[in-house]
């Protein structure tokens, strides 16, 4: 029996069901379709042989509509937007749509929720599934009422015959139905002209529970017999355990509620009856004290810009773009320029530190076969399932991972906290909840990597005639897979992480290529080894694991923010060198009407901008996300205090074209969030570290916590924000979770240049850096 058939039978209950199978699995076809400009990509056709794991289900019963999806809510309103699409096609009331998400036992494997793709990839498929269901219901209604389909109109779950006025409800039809269908790629979908729900600012479904404390985050998960764990981390990234102070163990054991000290390799943790007892037992002063050998020092923070560029730290160099001849272009140019840019390690720094709950039993449950259950805020329940299975040494089928929403993550340590909980639970034989403390999160979360960029260019008569960008970057992907070394706990046990990427691709290389039509254009991506590898050109980790740089992974927009900071700042440098208006230079370098439209939306504001040069100024930046999706342009206005070097971003305007707008208010909320986080990363955020590891382990520095701060924006750093949405109902809906963050640092830097005549080429643009740059100009 095929997987499809097995899944199909699940829904044939004889209780009145209409189930439609659809697939969201690979996004390749959607990408092809959207490249080709198709308004409603046909997507993946579900057939009898489709793997059950890759199926999603839209299920209608007399009691309501349920969507079984692998996509998870990451606080971005994805669920609300996807529901709007279903409601539109089905003509039902949105309140009746239930969402079952992110559980390896009941939802399909749809890969990671990330990269602004939930609505972009999921929307078209869900629309077809809903349209298929609607057509089936329409057929049933016509049969029931003995009229032709085109005589029927549907509204709020009722079909009405326009001729006789007789009606039949979906409920009545479904009660007498037992039908499983595959989504019809040719199903008739609602015309954008008739949209009543799509395009409306529908309120998010989750907020009422969140503002009344009824919502349960992963941090609120509590299961019977659950106890509390805390991990005790090594003294540094490369540290190894020497000994555990016996007196400190005696001290910890005397803490009321103490259960167990767990040590395997470099993984150390404690388990206690109460959360407070676990915190005390893991505390170096009140509980267990571990002695560590620091091991190989990390490359010093001050050396980062040079070290990233050092070929000895690189394992691969990839030519990503080669158009024309840059050397010839430079030789022929009226004016040339060159500049180097740098962005530091930055953190996800979620408001709520990572938390995981795991129940690892000695034998599988007799009825379900499940031996390990994990509750996690992971972005990919299936990947975490594989990693945890290999970490605790059980078959993947006996592990269940249940998604529970965490604090807004932007890619973070959720998987690592779940792994900590699994190891501790395996030892004590009870469910264990591990809540990372703030220094665990700031100190050990996988970071967004530092990047270095060298650019050269030439301009003649207002036209860019040469463009070269060489980028250097550690990996942007350390997400879990079946290898336990992809989890922090696994690597502390001695497993090696995944091999580093073989190409910059859409990670380190995201938005490194430009959308501009430059005649001579050269792009090179140099990949930096985060740890010692098995050879000079190898990205495979050598044993034992020794980091050169801090562990890094995907942070909102990956390399896009750094690459666009470099590209869009340097384009401004060329404009200044060539005596051209920066907005005009962008417009004349583009040949795509949707690209020029977002820039043209800012033209009036640009024309009325502060004149600059007197401490206030304005800048713009543009990008097309991943050079093939959402178009964004930003206008930023700043005031720079010449005495203190402090930058205040006063106003930001974003013009945004992501095609069809599903929910304009949810979209604005996303864009505003991008602007605020973009300002934060432009002005404030920089991971501080020494030869052992991260030292910026709190938000602020004070007499109790003298370590350097990891500063982020405060309310008084937030600019006024205007969003201009360009709605294109005939176009596919593209993502909005990341596109606009990438242009903020460049827009701010360009504004600072306009205000002061000083170019800041390093993030964050702290007062010290601004003063230094102004002095050395």
């Amino acid at each position, binding site marked *: 029996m095929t997987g499809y058939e097995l899944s199909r039978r699940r829904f044939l209950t004889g209780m009145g069901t209409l189930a439609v199978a659809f697939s969201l699995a690979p996004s390749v076809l959607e990408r092809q379709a959207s490249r080709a400009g198709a308004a409603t990509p046909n997507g993946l056709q579900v057939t009898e042989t489709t793997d059950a794991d890759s199926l999603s289900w839209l299920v209608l019963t007399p009691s309501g509509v349920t969507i079984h999806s692998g996509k998870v809510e990451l606080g971005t309103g994805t669920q609300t937007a996807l529901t709007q699409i279903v409601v539109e096609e089905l003509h039902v009331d949105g309140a009746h749509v239930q969402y079952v998400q992110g559980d390896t036992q009941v939802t399909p494997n749809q890969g990671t929720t990330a990269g602004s793709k939930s609505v972009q990839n999921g929307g078209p498929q869900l629309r077809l599934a809903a349209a298929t269901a609607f057509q089936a219901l329409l057929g049933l209604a016509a049969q029931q009422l003995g009229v032709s389909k085109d005589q029927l109109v549907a509204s709020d779950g009722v079909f009405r015959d326009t001729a006789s006025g007789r009606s039949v409800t979906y409920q009545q039809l479904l009660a007498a139905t037992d039908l499983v269908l595959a989504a019809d790629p040719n199903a008739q979908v609602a015309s954008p002209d008739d949209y009543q729900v799509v395009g409306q600012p529908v309120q998010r479904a989750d907020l009422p529970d969140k503002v009344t404390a009824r919502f349960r985050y992963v941090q609120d998960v509590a299961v019977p017999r659950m106890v509390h764990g805390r991990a005790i981390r090594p003294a540094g990234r490369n540290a190894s355990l020497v000994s555990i102070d016996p007196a400190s163990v005696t001290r910890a054991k005397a803490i009321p509620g103490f259960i167990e000290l767990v040590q395997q390799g470099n993984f150390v943790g404690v388990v206690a009856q109460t959360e407070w007892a676990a915190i005390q037992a893991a505390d170096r002063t009140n509980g267990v004290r571990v002695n560590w050998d620091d091991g190989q020092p990390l490359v010093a923070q001050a050396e980062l810009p040079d070290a990233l560029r050092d070929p000895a730290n690189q394992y691969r160099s990839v030519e990503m773009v080669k158009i024309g001849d840059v050397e010839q272009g430079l030789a022929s140019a009226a004016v040339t320029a060159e500049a180097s840019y740098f962005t530091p390690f930055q953190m996800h720094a979620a408001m*709520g530190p990572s938390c995981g709950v795991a129940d690892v039993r000695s034998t599988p449950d007799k009825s379900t076969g499940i031996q390990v259950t994990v509750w996690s805020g992971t972005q990919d329940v299936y990947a975490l399932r594989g990693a945890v299975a290999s970490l605790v040494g059980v078959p993947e089928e006996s592990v269940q991972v249940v998604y529970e929403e965490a*604090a807004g993550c932007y890619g973070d340590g959720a998987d690592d906290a779940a792994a900590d909980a699994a190891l501790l639970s395996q030892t004590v034989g009870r469910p264990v909840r591990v809540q990372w403390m703030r220094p665990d999160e700031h100190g050990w979360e996988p970071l967004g990597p530092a990047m270095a960029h060298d650019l050269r260019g030439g301009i003649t008569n207002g036209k860019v005639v040469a463009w070269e960008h060489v980028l250097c970057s550690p990996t942007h992907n350390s997400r879990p897979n079946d290898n336990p070394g992809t989890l922090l706990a696994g690597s502390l046990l001695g497993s090696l992480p995944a091999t580093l990427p073989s190409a910059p691709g859409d990670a380190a290389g995201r938005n490194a290529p430009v959308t501009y039509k430059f005649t001579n254009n050269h792009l090179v991506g140099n990949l930096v080894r985060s740890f010692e590898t098995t050879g000079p050109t190898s990205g495979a980790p050598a044993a034992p694991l020794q980091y050169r740089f801090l562990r890094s992974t995907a942070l909102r927009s990956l390399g896009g923010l750094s690459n666009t900071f470099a590209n869009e700042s340097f384009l401004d440098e060329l404009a200044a060198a060539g005596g051209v208006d920066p907005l005009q230079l962008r417009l004349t370098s583009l040949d795509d009407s949707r690209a020029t439209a977002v820039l043209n939306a800012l033209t009036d504001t640009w024309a009325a901008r502060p004149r600059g040069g007197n401490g206030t100024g304005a800048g713009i930046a543009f990008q097309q996300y991943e050079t093939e999706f959402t178009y964004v342009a930003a206008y930023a206005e700043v005031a720079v205090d010449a005495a203190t070097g402090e930058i205040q971003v006063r106003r930001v305007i974003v013009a945004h074209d992501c095609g069809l707008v599903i929910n304009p208010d949810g979209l604005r909320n996303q864009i505003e969030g991008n602007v605020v986080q973009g300002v934060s990363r432009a002005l404030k955020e920089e991971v501080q570290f020494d030869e052992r590891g991260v030292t910026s382990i709190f938000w602020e520095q004070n007499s109790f916590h003298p370590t350097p701060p990891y500063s982020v924006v405060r309310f008084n750093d937030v600019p006024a924000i205007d969003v201009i949405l360009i709605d294109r109902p005939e176009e596919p809906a593209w993502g909005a979770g990341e596109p606009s963050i990438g242009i903020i640092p460049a827009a701010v830097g360009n504004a600072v240049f306009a205000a002061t005549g000083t170019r800041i080429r390093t993030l964050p643009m702290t007062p010290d850096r601004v003063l230094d740059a102004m002095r050395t100009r």
Partner: protein
Amino acid sequence: MPTPLTRTLNVNGTDRTVNVDDDGEELLYVLRNDLDQHGPRFGCGVAQCGACTVLVDGQITRSCQTPLRTVRDGASVETLDGLDADGSLHPLQRTFIEEQAAQCAYCVNGIIMGAVGWLRQRKVSGNTSVPSDPEIVAFLSGDAPGFTRNYLCRCGAHTRMIRAISSAAGEVLS
């Protein structure tokens, strides 16, 4: 050795008695794990972010840095969980929904409870004027007279939260 402690707290209008093994246990863990309150959340543990904010005897309190022994017996503790106890949303809860003033909303507990405490004290001090946006920003940035604690939001819903507080303030102050 830690000192055990028994305390009776009036949590959102109901007297609740708790026993802890260590009188140094922070109020946050007592509220979350012993008294089933889910509004106050662990964010930083060092009173720098605001996610754990509750009102103790009406005072804005970072519960992650409040050992239980420092809370008087019989003290009133108000949490986000109890803000709509009378069955209707508090004006701030309502305007946070109206303005869709959140994304992940993990920080919302702190912002709402902080604003409730701040506006009430404003009223008690005889000032019933609706605060200006710069006043709201100063309060949330820890830059207002008598209010030096910063409130963090990581998702960037700041401008909406300012609007939500502004639009609820009149009702809270009346």
